[in-house]
């Protein structure tokens, strides 16, 4: 394998144009990377809407009155920690280590679910205080932007559950590894979007 790899693989004697099509893992990874970039462009549009509308409170509550920074720091910590455990989980996948894959992916799931719980409690507190999306343009933009991110996290959690079932039933076959790999890219990208959210929405408000 190693000799064949050296002979036919990425040796400098074979020019790139003669190495044949890229392997599936590279094609899938690159395609999913393009999807993530387009997803980030969707978020950019929502960020632009928020930036334009953040001052239009129509006499309603503004960000400084609504947002609790300690709460947001807790949410940020959950998401950052889950991104970290997801990375360790993908290392366990590369080692084909079933036990640690489950440990780290379970940690990722719990931290992601904790993030969603904090966000849901924040949203429900705002709704009961009369700060619904219909109150002002600022609140519409806020709920659209932060809600879309929360929706992505929810989809990610369902995806993670499906992947854990697939590891149990199918094992570490290449198809499952590719899907887990795409999941970890998705999860890290969501964390990058959250950096924008807490900086612009929550910290920019004061």
């Amino acid at each position, binding site marked *: 394998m190693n000799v064949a790899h050296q002979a036919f693989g990425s040796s400098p004697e074979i020019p790139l144009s003669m190495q*044949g099509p890229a392997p599936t893992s590279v094609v899938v990874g*690159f395609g999913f990377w393009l999807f993530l970039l387009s997803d980030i462009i969707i978020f950019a549009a929502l960020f632009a809407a928020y930036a334009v509308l953040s001052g239009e409170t129509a006499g309603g509550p503004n960000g400084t009155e609504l947002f609790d920074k300690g709460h947001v720091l807790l949410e940020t910590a959950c998401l950052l920690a889950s991104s970290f455990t997801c990375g360790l989980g993908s290392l366990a996948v590369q080692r084909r280590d079933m036990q640690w894959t489950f440990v780290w992916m379970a940690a990722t799931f719990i931290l992601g679910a904790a993030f969603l719980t904090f966000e849901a409690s924040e949203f429900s507190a705002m709704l009961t205080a009369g700060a619904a999306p219909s109150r002002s343009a600022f609140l519409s933009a806020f709920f659209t932007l932060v809600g879309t991110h929360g929706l992505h996290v929810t989809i990610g959690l369902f995806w993670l559950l499906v992947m854990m079932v697939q590891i149990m039933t199918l094992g570490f076959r290449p198809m499952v590894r590719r899907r887990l790999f795409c999941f970890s890219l998705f999860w890290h990208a969501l964390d990058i979007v959250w950096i924008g959210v807490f900086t612009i929405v929550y910290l920019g408000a004061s």
Partner: protein
Amino acid sequence: MNDHYDAQGEAPGISEHSGGGPRSYLIGAGFATILTLASFWASSTQLIYGPGVPILLGVLAIAQMGVHLVFFLHISSAPDQTNNFLALAFGIFVVGLVVFGSMIIMANLNHAMMPMDRLMQMQR
């Protein structure tokens, strides 16, 4: 095994030959934690000159996004990452166009619009 070594480029996030191990994730998590705490501190402190705070927050956020890209998503400018890097550059370009373009256009429209009370008078 190692089927992604063989041909044109690497998928993003492959860490096996860019150091590997939990090291890059540990470094990334450390930097990200420091930058997050720094931006929360900067937003609530009185020590920094007020109008400078948004700029500092922007710098910290961009730095943290860079940390995530490098240490979690393993994006680099290495030769086998050219595809990923170019796609990222184009993505950043479009994001910049959408965000700053919208803000400039809307501020301009807002500036050119007649004040609301005058508009009401004209409709009467």
